[in-house]
């Protein structure tokens, strides 16, 4: 598993070069933005059930057949598995966001996920839709552009507007999930 720092090291080592000012500028920005990054991660961890439940509910509302007998979310046991998977994906996205690198998400969550779903007969198109909704919800909560109240309490009292860049980064991790399932 890599983070923003070790990712720089691995790519520098491939070139056999020391890490100079150019590469360090990005890492300095990572360190400077650490507080925003932690706030953005808190936006996920404080709203896990909400994000996952909304996404699965949204997915079912768009395809009501899913909860009917014969549907993929019938009976409740399979619906519960769906919610559980939503939370697992959010967990790995939160790790990747904190580390500033997607390797943990790719190695430990996405690698083989599509094959597993195909083998179990999970319809990937619906799974992708749920991930899309989670992405939209997560970005909205992070940047405080969700309707209604502020959904998370950061440690640095930074407003969500400051999390724009980090939220965009979080969106790329959800995109990786979608890509892996497509």
């Amino acid at each position, binding site marked *: *598993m*890599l*983070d*923003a*720092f*070790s990712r*720089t*090291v*691995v790519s*520098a*080592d491939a070139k*056999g*070069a*020391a*890490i*100079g*000012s150019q590469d*360090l500028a990005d*890492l*300095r920005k990572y*360190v400077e933005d*650490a*507080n925003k990054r*932690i706030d953005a*991660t*808190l936006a*996920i*961890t404080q709203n*896990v059930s909400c994000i996952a439940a909304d996404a699965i509910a949204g997915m079912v509302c768009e395809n009501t057949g899913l909860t009917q007998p014969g549907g993929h979310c019938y009976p409740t046991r399979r619906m519960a598995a769906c919610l559980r998977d939503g939370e697992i994906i959010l*967990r790995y996205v*939160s*790790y990747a966001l*904190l*580390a*500033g690198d997607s390797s*943990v998400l790719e190695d*430990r969550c996405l690698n083989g996920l599509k094959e597993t779903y195909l083998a179990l007969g999970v319809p990937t198109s619906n799974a992708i839709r749920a991930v899309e909704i989670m992405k939209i919800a997560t970005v909205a909560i992070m940047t405080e552009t969700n309707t209604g109240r502020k959904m998370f309490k950061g*440690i640095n009292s930074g407003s969500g507007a400051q999390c724009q860049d980090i939220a965009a980064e979080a969106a790329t991790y959800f995109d990786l999930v979608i890509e892996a399932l497509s």
Partner: protein
Amino acid sequence: MKSAVTTVVSAADAAGRFPSMSDFESVKGSFDRAKARLEAAEKLASCLDKFTNDAVDAVYQNGSYEQANKDKCVRDIHHYLRLINYCLVTGGTGPLDEWGISGMREIIRIQLLPTTAYIEAFMFIRDEIKINEVMSQQAETELKGLLDYLINALA
């Protein structure tokens, strides 16, 4: 590769939980030291060739080693300093451990290399070169800590 953030994430993943408040505290703690580390890495990168050449010149001056091997010695010292540069960036000894120290003893023994030459070179860099002229006190402390670590591993 081990660093402050990956250690925390691995532990959280092993327990199947989301990163907690204490995880964030530990990540933040490592970032407090990051400024000095990154400065040391930057300055070391810009002085890498100079440090290497000065150290190797000093070691070979007294004539106790074969001059023919000098180029290879320069290459190796350069390599180790580059790994130290990586360690300063990651904030852990991962790069040195994984790419420089594990297996090193075996290689040095089988090729009958004099480890003392390496040790002398790194001790020269640590003690004789005026590192504080190119970087701040805190950065120097970070760099010297890693030089010590490497010297101990070689000894």
